[in-house]
């Protein structure tokens, strides 16, 4: 008994991360890595390969934060989380950032004790059906069975959409995304609905991706972004400005390839971003070359986008809403000055 207790305590001691209550920033600096909550496997956003290396734009965001705070983008540990666990994991301090294609809503921002740090992907909910059903519009879906992920905003939007259009809905809800896809693939549902990016990603997991089509309707706004705990403004600032730095870098044309050369640029915006001028880093509580580290080690927003979800990837998503504001999109970085 005693031996067992001591074994257990030893285990507990190793597994317990005693984060200082001082703040996430100090906590992260102390332990030397960032614990990042990601999805359990969504290609393009966060997906592990066979040896456990994570890739995707949500993953890149965490790496960028690590680059900014610790100067090393590899100092990240990933916790794959289900939709159900994600908020508790963040609330309890198990993770430092939740970067798991999470939609920014009022309830989440308030009643759940969370703070959204920005939007790294503007999405909208779409529908996928079998091509041979011969459907052209979501408005023809009266009486359809819809496969959907449990407890997501998607599930609520779906109900709202059918209600407003006076259509009957048979929802079939699953806990895990893979189960939703499997059920849809097995013919349990007429339609599969989730964020459009998700549809594109999950489509690869269907037996015959070509036999399915997306319907034109986008029924909701799904701003997806990183989330941090409520009440830790310093950390919120770091995450928020990490995202802006990535966007700003793209606006300014700074890429991981040319960042060293750009350091010598005489564009004051670039000089400020890369820490050559001003003390933005100091105000943020990180080193002066924080943005340089982000761009050098992770890349700017556009690079990350193209690498994992852009047209040249299996997901083949257009920039669309995620284009820079200057190109008619919504990605707009607050001035880094």
């Amino acid at each position: 008994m005693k031996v067992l207790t001591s074994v257990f305590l030893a285990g507990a001691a190793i597994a317990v991360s005693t984060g200082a209550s001082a703040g996430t920033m100090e906590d992260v600096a102390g332990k030397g890595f960032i614990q990042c909550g990601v999805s359990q496997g969504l290609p393009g956003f966060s997906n592990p390969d066979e040896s456990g290396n994570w890739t995707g734009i949500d993953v890149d965001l965490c790496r960028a934060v690590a680059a900014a705070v610790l100067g090393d983008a590899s100092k990240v540990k990933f916790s794959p989380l289900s939709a159900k666990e994600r908020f508790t994991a963040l609330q309890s301090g198990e993770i430092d950032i939740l970067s798991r294609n999470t939609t920014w809503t009022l309830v989440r921002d308030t009643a759940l004790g969370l703070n959204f740090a920005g939007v790294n992907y503007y999405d909208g909910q779409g529908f996928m059906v079998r091509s041979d059903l011969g459907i052209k519009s979501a408005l023809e879906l009266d009486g359809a069975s819809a496969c959907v992920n449990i407890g997501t905003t998607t599930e609520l939007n779906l109900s709202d959409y059918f209600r407003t259009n006076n259509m009957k809905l048979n929802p079939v809800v699953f806990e895990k995304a893979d189960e939703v896809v499997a059920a849809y693939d097995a013919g349990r549902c007429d339609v599969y609905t989730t964020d459009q990016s998700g549809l594109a990603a999950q489509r690869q997991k269907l037996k015959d991706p070509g036999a399915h089509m997306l319907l034109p309707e986008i029924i909701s706004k799904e701003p997806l972004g990183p989330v941090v705990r409520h009440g830790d403004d310093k950390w919120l600032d770091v995450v928020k400005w990490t995202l802006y730095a990535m966007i700003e870098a793209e606006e300014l044309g700074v890429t991981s390839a040319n960042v060293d050369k750009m350091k010598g640029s005489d564009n004051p915006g670039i000089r400020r971003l890369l820490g050559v001028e001003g003390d933005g880093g100091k105000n943020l509580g990180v080193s002066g070359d924080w943005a340089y580290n982000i761009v050098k080690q992770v890349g700017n927003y556009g690079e990350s986008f193209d690498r994992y979800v852009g047209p040249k990837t299996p997901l083949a998503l257009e920039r669309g809403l995620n284009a820079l504001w200057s190109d008619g999109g919504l990605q707009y970085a607050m001035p880094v000055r």
Partner: protein
Amino acid sequence: MAVDQVAPAARPPFFYDPRVRAIFFQVLVLALVILGGAYLVNNTLANLARQGIASGFGFLDTTAGFGISMSLVEYSEESTYGRVFLVGFLNTILVSVVGVFFATVLGFLIGVARLSRNWVVSKMANAYIETLRNIPLLLQLFFWYFAVLRTLPSPRNSVELFGSFFLNNRGLTSPSPIPEAGFSTVVISFAVAIVAAFFVARWARKRQEATGQQFPRFWAGLGIIIGLPLLAAIVTGFPLSWSVPELRGFNFVNGMVLIPEFVALVVALSTYTAAFIAEIVRAGITSVSHGQTEAAFALGLRRSPTLRLVIIPQALRVIIPPLTSQYLNLTKNSSLAAAIAYPDIVLVFAGTVLMQTGQAVEIISITMATYLALSLLISGFMNWYNQKMALVER
């Protein structure tokens, strides 16, 4: 040394008094438990307050806003989270009751087959038992759901049975009865028939006790229970119409549908539990010693009364307690519904509602309390039954 010198013993030193020791120890344990509990509660409250997480049970009145694929009571998106709980709870009860029924029937069949003198039948029953009870239920559930679902056709290519039943990957669609005027007569006559059958059985027993004459009470009772409602139906002109399902759009409308999640869950739960019940039944029957049969035969009883009056009552006493705990297991196992989208309490309440509101503590507590109440109810019944049987035994 004279005994007289022994004075009445002084009170023992308090630390050797077992009562004092017991009280001390219990107070200590209680204090530790209360302290531990208070520590956890305190932490939880602090965590909730610090992060501004909502708490309390007010959420039960909030509008849910999502749909549920199967409901025994009126439910729509405008209903509240409290209603969602009710829907999930009733679905849990439904699948448990149906599962218990099929598991019992199948389990008794297989248990008897296991004891069959036919070698092939006995070995097949054995293979069934050993296969099913050694594979995790969740795995079997996935098999029944995904493997069987994939082989079923789409609604447009439904398998048609008897003209009005349709089997496809949306489930089994069947006509639903619509009661018309006069239908209540049939229902009432059914109730009357059950009461009548009961009294006939009692009369038959009394008569046998008094005169020794026997009466086929089983067949008579069955006749009454089927005959009387049938008669009522004929008299009132079959006051029941059917809403026949028809294919419209890409799904059937009208009629009623057994969703595949329900079917898969019932099949998995009952085939799995049946393997355990079969073993219980076998053990129960073999526990009645062969001497009992021989004694009954020696008294001149024939096979059927021997079984009915001697063997089965004794076997049941052995069977019922473990059988009840299997029913309990089945009810608890129905929570695996969450893995295949059957809208039971775990899926819709501890799942969807939890994620919408984020109030983990309240929702998980309610869910666990519900199962606990169900368990206590069933095991309370079991204890009552055991006591009753134990009285009969003496």
